[in-house]
């Protein structure tokens, strides 16, 4: 399936864009998506930590993703 993935902060800079489009297996888990992205963008592994959000909620490793979902890569936050 084709997935649109939002990137913020340093993840946006690593992607080179605020939204990227990738082809992944159907119903990929958040954990598998992380691995997939780290293959495609090895620099992600240098981040101290980052989380995946599905539909504006932090995702667990096992959470499944459909092509309808809004997926985002969130580096360690630093607001305030």
């Amino acid at each position: 399936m084709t997935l649109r993935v939002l990137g913020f902060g340093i993840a946006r800079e690593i992607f080179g864009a605020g939204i990227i489009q990738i082809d992944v297996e159907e119903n990929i888990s958040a954990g598998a998506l992380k691995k997939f992205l780290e293959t495609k963008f090895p620099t992600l592994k240098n981040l101290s930590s980052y989380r995946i959000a599905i539909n504006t909620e932090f995702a667990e490793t096992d959470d499944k993703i459909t092509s309808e979902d809004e997926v985002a890569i969130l580096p360690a936050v630093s607001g305030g």
Partner: protein
Amino acid sequence: MIEVKLTEKAIDPLACINWVMSDNSGGIDVFIGSVRSETNHRKVMRLEFEAYGEMALNKMNGIAKDVFDKWPVNKILIHHRIGILQIGEIPVLIAVAAAHRAAAFDACRYAIDTLKQNVPIWKKEVYEDGEIWVAAHP
């Protein structure tokens, strides 16, 4: 009552304070973040804040609701700035009004601590000779 805002305009402390004050609140605690000119001995030129807007507002509203569940407060306001900020400008202001001060202090501190952990906003420090996304690297 809750007021939560992400804004590209300067945060107005007096307007925020006036919004939280009311005849039934005796104690108001206000936390104001301010852009420092130096971090880790590097001179900061400016900050750039970026947010995942929809999720950030959800999380900020969630913090405000948690505060009402945890403490007897009357009003809470959370404003966060995005975009480019100069030294001395205000990235964040949290104001909590309660009948008594203990709840206002506890709730305000909880709100800023939780915001810094869970709200998807990122800050880039720009120096004379480079820039860093804060907390992104080990």
